[in-house]
């Protein structure tokens, strides 16, 4: 079930009604049938996969969290559970993407029809798998007490709003959040509804429209050359951001209706002044997750500490201590790229290219330190230049991400400099361009309002402006709903049924 669909809204309304009709004490347990029904909409096999991961990680948590067990035994259990779940993830997601494993897995699972994979993949297996593996590691590292109540763990592991697209949650935070008392409040309803409408606005008005340009340009850059390529590449950045962050707005808004707080996943990412800052503002929970569960453990591992010792001796302390960081970065970014789809275009576009940006920036840092005073780096023009430069570097990565494959991305970049092949039709009318332009201005204004120069500062909330102002609240909701109804692209010929991140 897509998060931007009428069916989903009806589903949420039904869950909301039952949730608040039930007494406070048992409210959280309404999520058990809700999560099961949501999973089953995606197919019974999908539910089976989710359940399998939940059961194995639940047992894994109990065993790895035992105080009296030997460390070696706990490590072995954790490794077995993690490998099992990753194998499941790899089999369904990546080999499924390449169309190589469907038959074998069907035979293995005794499935009669060949269609289960098509249902299982859009559920974005990796979000919940990573979250569940994070729980096992938390138990292993003594960061959290193992959950003994399977029902509570099931609610955490299969919590329906986050299941398809994140954000990535930590067990101790989300389980405590679900377990506390939830009461019906006007503030939650107001914030939740505005947030959901804003998500629909971004997805159906901006992302779907930008998608028409993207599909045309990426579909045939023999015809679309020069400025069209630039337009297409820019449109994809808009499409992906509006799509993914719109999805997060819906997830966070639905959770808000249930009085459950979810972590934010975006913080005005296109205003970042460096690639490192960009990744602290884009898909924030994935970055935090990988830092805690992959990057830090790698850096703290004996081989990398050893590499650090050797490199410090060879290159001196200052340069040498950076070497293990570079090695860990290459592994981390390859993993991030692989997570996005297991194809080279993702490994480069979403991984190694960004790794190259960051590592080369770190290597060149002494040079930057010298020229910074000359460039007046604390002044606004230079800061604007940094924002633009970072955005262009991000766009370059997106070309690989969206193109059919790596050679196609290279051809696409070459087409920027090719001679124009004359007028080409994009498939959007003038009215569509105006709607897209105005909607984009609204999105930019909202992001600018939220933006704080320091990425660790809490962003300003636009929705808070409606607090204590019922007329303004209704105006905002009516504007968003009417805009979506009038200008949303969901009619025949458009497929707004899935979010980009939920379907890859």
């Amino acid at each position, binding site marked *: 079930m897509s998060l931007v669909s009428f069916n989903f809204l009806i589903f949420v309304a039904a869950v909301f009604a039952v949730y608040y009709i039930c007494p406070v004490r048992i409210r959280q347990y309404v999520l058990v049938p809700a999560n099961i029904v949501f999973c089953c909409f995606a197919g019974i096999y999908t539910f089976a996969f989710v359940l399998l991961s939940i059961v194995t990680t639940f047992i894994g948590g109990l065993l790895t969290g035992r105080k009296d067990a030997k460390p070696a035994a706990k490590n072995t259990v954790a490794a077995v559970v993690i490998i099992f779940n990753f194998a499941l993830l790899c089999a369904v997601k990546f080999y499924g993407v390449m169309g190589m494993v469907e038959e074998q897995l069907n035979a293995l699972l005794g499935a009669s029809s060949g269609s289960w994979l098509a249902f299982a993949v859009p559920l974005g297996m990796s979000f919940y798998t990573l979250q569940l593996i994070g729980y096992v*590691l*938390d138990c292993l*590292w*003594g*960061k*959290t007490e193992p959950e003994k109540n399977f029902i509570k763990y099931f609610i955490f592991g299969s919590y329906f709003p986050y299941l398809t697209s994140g954000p990535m949650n930590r067990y101790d935070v989300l389980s405590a959040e679900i377990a506390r008392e939830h009461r019906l409040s006007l503030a939650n309803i107001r914030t939740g509804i505005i947030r959901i409408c804003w998500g629909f606005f971004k997805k159906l008005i901006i992302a779907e429209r930008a998608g028409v340009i993207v599909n045309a340009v990426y579909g045939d850059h023999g015809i679309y050359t020069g400025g069209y390529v630039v337009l297409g590449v820019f449109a994809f950045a808009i499409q992906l951001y509006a799509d993914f962050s719109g999805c997060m707005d819906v997830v966070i808004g639905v959770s808000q209706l249930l009085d459950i707080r979810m972590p934010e996943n975006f913080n005005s990412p296109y205003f970042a002044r460096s690639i490192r800052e960009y990744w602290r503002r884009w898909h924030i929970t994935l970055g935090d997750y990988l*830092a*805690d569960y992959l*990057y*830090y*453990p790698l*850096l*703290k591992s004996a081989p990398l*500490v050893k590499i*650090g010792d050797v490199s410090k001796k060879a290159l001196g*302390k*200052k340069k040498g*201590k950076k070497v293990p*960081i570079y090695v860990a970065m290459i592994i981390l970014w390859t993993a991030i790229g692989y997570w996005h789809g297991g194809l080279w275009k993702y490994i480069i576009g979403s991984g190694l290219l960004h790794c190259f940006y960051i590592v080369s920036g*770190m290597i060149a840092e002494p040079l930057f330190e010298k020229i910074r005073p000359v460039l007046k780096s604390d002044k606004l023009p230079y800061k604007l230049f940094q924002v633009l430069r970072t955005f262009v570097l991000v766009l370059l990565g997106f070309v690989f991400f969206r193109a059919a494959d790596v050679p196609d991305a290279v051809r696409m970049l070459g087409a920027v400099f090719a001679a124009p092949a004359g007028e080409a039709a994009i498939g959007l009318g003038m009215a569509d361009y105006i709607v897209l332009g105005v909607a984009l201005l609204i999105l930019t204004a909202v992001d600018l309002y939220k933006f704080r120069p320091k990425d*660790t500062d809490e962003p300003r909330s636009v929705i808070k402006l409606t607090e204590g102002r019922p007329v303004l609240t209704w105006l905002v909701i009516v504007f968003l709903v009417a805009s979506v109804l009038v200008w949303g692209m969901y009619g025949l010929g458009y497929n707004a049924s899935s979010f980009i991140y939920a379907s890859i």
Partner: protein
Amino acid sequence: MTREEIYVKLNEVFQDVFDDEDIVVNDDTTADDIEDWDSLEHINLIVAVERAFGIKFSMGETTSMKNVGAMVDIISERI
């Protein structure tokens, strides 16, 4: 080792890792207070502290210490 003695040794580790002789840490010091203490340098610091005191931090402790005070609490438990 008293808390004061731990701090004497810990200050040396911080000064060495961040190449700054003037760094003096206390219970409330966090990554925000030291310019170069970012996510990239954090593990360098943790490994250096582990070596100086001959202890090991678990991964959970490595990523969840709120401030230097929390680090000193763990050190004083282990030595």
